[in-house]
């Protein structure tokens, strides 16, 4: 009897701890979401009522509109370029043994070590030097560098999970190297590549530190616009736009998870 009681106690302790961690992790987002529906002019928590007025303002505020579109443009190009370059790197590292392979891997991982601040600052100076200023090109280039390790890693893992016998089987059946790539390798890598792209998109959409340096008023992305806004205003619009960004990225995250999860299911299927 007492053993069962002890087990029950241990289970409730465990789940209690899990609940605490969950609350701790999500509380900032929760506070922001609550504040965003406050009718008051001031940022207040807990809110004294309920209203969507700050969402209306967030949607109609021109700077946010522009920044959102900018963000989409930058993300679309940066994630796609990152996917292209990252996939090529992953393929090279997986398939070929060459001098400097280890060095290449280190370079690919370097954005994890170099602060975003440094990367942004570097690209700002470089952009100025090349006469590109804070154009889209510079912003996109910055975001490509920042997202590359994640994309190449994702594709690399997918490549590792690919049974080499599948490519051999296709070759044996008469498929030229190009046909093998087109009909076997790429289709099987697709979930991993889509997942990698979405991961890059999420990182790019929410990146702030480096973007602060490399964007101008004309090219600024949403997090930068939000930062500019809080320096001037203190109303809950900022909470509303934050909530929107959270919802948008959560949707992307779910999508990415489905793609990467699907990849795993496929890998199980094969064996």
């Amino acid at each position, binding site marked *: 009897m007492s053993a069962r009681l002890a087990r029950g106690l241990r289970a409730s302790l465990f789940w209690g701890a899990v609940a605490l961690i969950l609350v701790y992790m999500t509380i900032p987002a929760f506070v922001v979401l609550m504040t965003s529906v406050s009718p008051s002019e001031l940022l207040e928590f807990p809110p004294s009522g309920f209203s969507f007025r700050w969402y209306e303002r967030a949607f109609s505020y021109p700077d946010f509109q522009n920044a959102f579109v900018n963000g989409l443009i930058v993300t679309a190009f940066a994630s796609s370029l990152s996917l292209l370059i990252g996939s090529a790197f992953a393929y090279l590292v997986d398939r070929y043994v060459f001098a400097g392979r280890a060095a290449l891997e280190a370079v690919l991982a370097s954005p994890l070590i170099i602060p975003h601040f440094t990367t942004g600052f570097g690209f700002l100076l470089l952009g100025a030097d090349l006469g590109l200023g804070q154009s889209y090109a510079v912003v996109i280039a910055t975001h490509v560098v920042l997202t590359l390790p994640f994309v190449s890693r994702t594709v690399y893992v997918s490549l590792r999970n690919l*049974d080499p*016998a*599948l490519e*051999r*089987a*296709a*070759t*044996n*059946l*008469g*498929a*030229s*190297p190009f*046909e093998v790539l087109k*009909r*076997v390798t790429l*289709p*099987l890598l697709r979930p991993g590549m889509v997942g990698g792209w979405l991961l890059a998109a999420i990182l790019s959409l929410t990146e702030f530190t480096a973007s602060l340096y490399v964007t101008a008023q004309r090219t600024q992305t949403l997090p930068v616009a939000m930062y500019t806004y809080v320096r001037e205003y203190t109303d809950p619009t900022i909470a509303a736009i934050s909530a929107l960004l959270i919802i948008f990225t959560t949707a992307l995250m779910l999508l990415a998870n489905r793609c990467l999860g699907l990849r795993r299911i*496929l890998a199980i*299927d*094969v*064996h």
Partner: protein
Amino acid sequence: MKAQALPAVELTRVSKNFDAVQAVRELSLTIQKGELLTLLGPSGCGKTTLLNMIAGFDVPSGGSIVIDGRDVTAVPPYRRETGMVFQSYALFPHMNVFENVAFGLRMRKMAKLGIERAVGRALEMVKLEGFASRRVGQLSGGQQQRVALARAIVIGPKVLLLDEPLSALDKNLRRAMQLELRELHERTGLTTVFVTHDQEEALGLSDRIVVMSRGEIQQVAAPLELYRSPANGFVASFIGEINRLPPARCRIEGDEAVFEIAGHVVLRARRREKLTIAEGQETHLFVRPEHLTIATSKSSAQNKVSCRVTTHLYQGAYTLTRVDAGPLGNLQLRALGGEAIAAAPIGSQIEIDIDLDEAVILAG
């Protein structure tokens, strides 16, 4: 006399080195059209490497490979027209059964109608009619195996290459698939190279068996010949169970060969035509467990040896009995049924009879 047909595959002094490892050494072999040839040997002896060289996945370090009269040593694998079945099956997970089987035909730019007909026929041949639209993930191991087979045979390969295709299946299914493979081979008449390290499988399936060891051929022979007259000690001990007796000295007495083992045990065998052992030469005797029997009081056998029973291993159809035969070492007997267990209890002293007429006798 009929003119000798062109061999399906001819390997001439083929070698393959992986850095320091010599996986295959100057191996020459001719595979006849329509035969089912098995590559048999212990793990790491180079079976897969040899198969990969025929398929074109491994480039030989030396020698030449001719398929159907054409030297393919430098031809890439996708132009060799071989059909390979992989140990892991390697079915394309993003395609259904039909698309998997159709893959090779699509690569050959066959017309749609022709593909449908050929795939239908191939699936029928492996008894998978009605499975065309299944996802490969929904198939059992045995079914996946059949799809892999259908995919390989549908292209009408010049040679079918099977690398341990049955090793992932459980024992019963494996037996059934062995029979089916043999039947499929009769029906298609495809030249087939089958890799296994299961000697029973090899004996049961093959027209000829190639026994390999350390990248070299030990013997090429039909199953029966291989079992009854292995060319050397390695083959003798690798194919089936066999007792290796201690070195013997041979003497000829009339029409009998007399072997003296460990100084005082004397065994006799009828002289054979083929036996080319000189007087006094050291010889090695190998005796199958089924040629050792428990001697009864009235039997008048000439090679009686006394020994002590150590274990019985009952196998249903037969019983394996281990005995300690003193100077002859440990020996194994095989007797039908299970009577031996009661007739010769463990620990008891018995006499056994060694029938040397079927023994393998090799000059040391």
